[in-house]
């Protein structure tokens, strides 16, 4: 099953077929989500309109963590089964994840200014672990490109991704393990969400929108990567 889609050519064709649909879904979800987030949801009684930052901040945080998890899984696949597509998936996803992490950090500190009275809090475990996540992404990207032999870069980056995975549970649970400024989880938790549905629904829609955007971009980048690889192989064979 896995191997049917894992053939690069078949993957390319499949991705081409899926791409228009996910692109469309992304656009629709964003339109609906932004409408809800900006107009059809209530302002917070304490925080006022700044609460709307949440509709970017929280989905970006979810996708940033999910993306790292995805990379870690792909890295395991690549190291154990040595599958070339897994490498390509991992290296295509890393810059996206870095982007989402930057969004989390930026929106978080924008939001922190009015609510906590500070842009950044050095001792806070949640903020620190997210910063570490950004560095892990950057390290992953740098390592992928640091070798003349791309295969070696992919393997090294895969080891890093697996090592860095310890950070994900730390991000997730830091708010519970240590007393921090940041609020604890209210959506993704074992006993079900604890926030009101007028906030929850737009949040979930935005979450879906971000996820579809991630998938779209991932497919685009993977196809570009495969095409570049093919072109290089052709050029090298021509040079023989």
């Amino acid at each position: 099953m896995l191997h049917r889609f894992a053939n690069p050519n078949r993957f390319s064709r499949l991705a081409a077929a899926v791409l228009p649909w996910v692109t469309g879904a992304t656009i629709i979800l964003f339109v609906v989500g932004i409408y809800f987030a900006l107009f059809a949801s209530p302002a917070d009684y304490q925080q006022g309109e700044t609460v709307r930052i949440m509709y970017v901040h929280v989905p970006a945080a979810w996708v940033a963590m999910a993306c790292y998890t995805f990379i870690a899984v792909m890295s395991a696949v690549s190291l154990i089964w040595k599958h070339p597509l897994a490498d390509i998936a991992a290296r295509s996803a890393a810059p996206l994840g870095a982007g989402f992490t930057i969004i989390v950090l930026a929106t978080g500190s924008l939001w922190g200014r009015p609510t906590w009275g500070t842009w950044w809090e050095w001792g806070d475990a949640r903020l620190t672990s997210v910063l570490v996540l950004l560095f892990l992404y950057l390290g992953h990207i740098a390592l992928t490109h640091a070798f003349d032999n791309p295969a070696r870069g992919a393997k090294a980056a895969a080891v890093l991704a697996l090592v860095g995975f310890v950070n994900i549970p730390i991000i997730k649970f830091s708010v519970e393990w240590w007393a921090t400024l940041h609020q604890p989880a209210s959506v993704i938790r074992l006993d079900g969400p604890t926030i009101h549905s007028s906030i929850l629904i737009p949040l979930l829609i935005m979450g879906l929108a971000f996820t579809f955007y991630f998938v779209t971009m991932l497919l685009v980048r993977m196809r570009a990567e495969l095409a570049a690889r093919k072109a290089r192989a052709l050029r090298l064979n021509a040079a023989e």
Partner: protein
Amino acid sequence: MIGLLLLIRRDLKLAFRGGTDAAMAVVFFILAATLFPFGVGPDPEILPRIGGGVIWVVALLAAMLSLERMFSADYEDGSLEQFVLSPLPMVMVALAKIIAHWLTTGVLLLVAAPVLAVFYNLPAAAFVPLIVSMLLGTPTLSLIGAIGAALTLGARRSGVLISLLVLPLYIPVLIFGALVVDSALAGREYGALLMVLGGFLLLALAAAPWATAAALRQAIE
């Protein structure tokens, strides 16, 4: 097991004969820590306040600086390939290198730390917490650092890359290490913080040798 000891002994011998730089880390540690008062100004009020933090930061930088040398000499002269072919499992090779690194940096830093503490006018109450936190923290630095050093072998710009990969992972150790000293100074309980440092150490001990070994095996082509 014999192989492990053998390799550690060789590395120590090389370090103390000066092939690599055993004293480098300590000298850097001491000199860098001495520089701060020159830069910051010798304000008797500020120095003790930042002392614990500065000592920890500088220890971390010192440990990091010696990382690049950890495997590179063996990589370049072909010793690493011979390790791969030797009967000693790569995990043991990695572990031996890590232990040797710790013995030649971490331990020396531990010895130097009290001197610097005096230098920064740290109150006596902070000494034991400083040493204990470094005792728990420095092996973690060597363990995490080994992964970075092995991953970047043969990379372009390996020096920068190591810093980029390793420093972020050092941050938690630094935060808790410095917190221990701070809490001690403020008269707060710091046992729980030491537990966290111990937890980091166990985690690193469980993962780092394997990750390092995997990275070393890939470095050889």
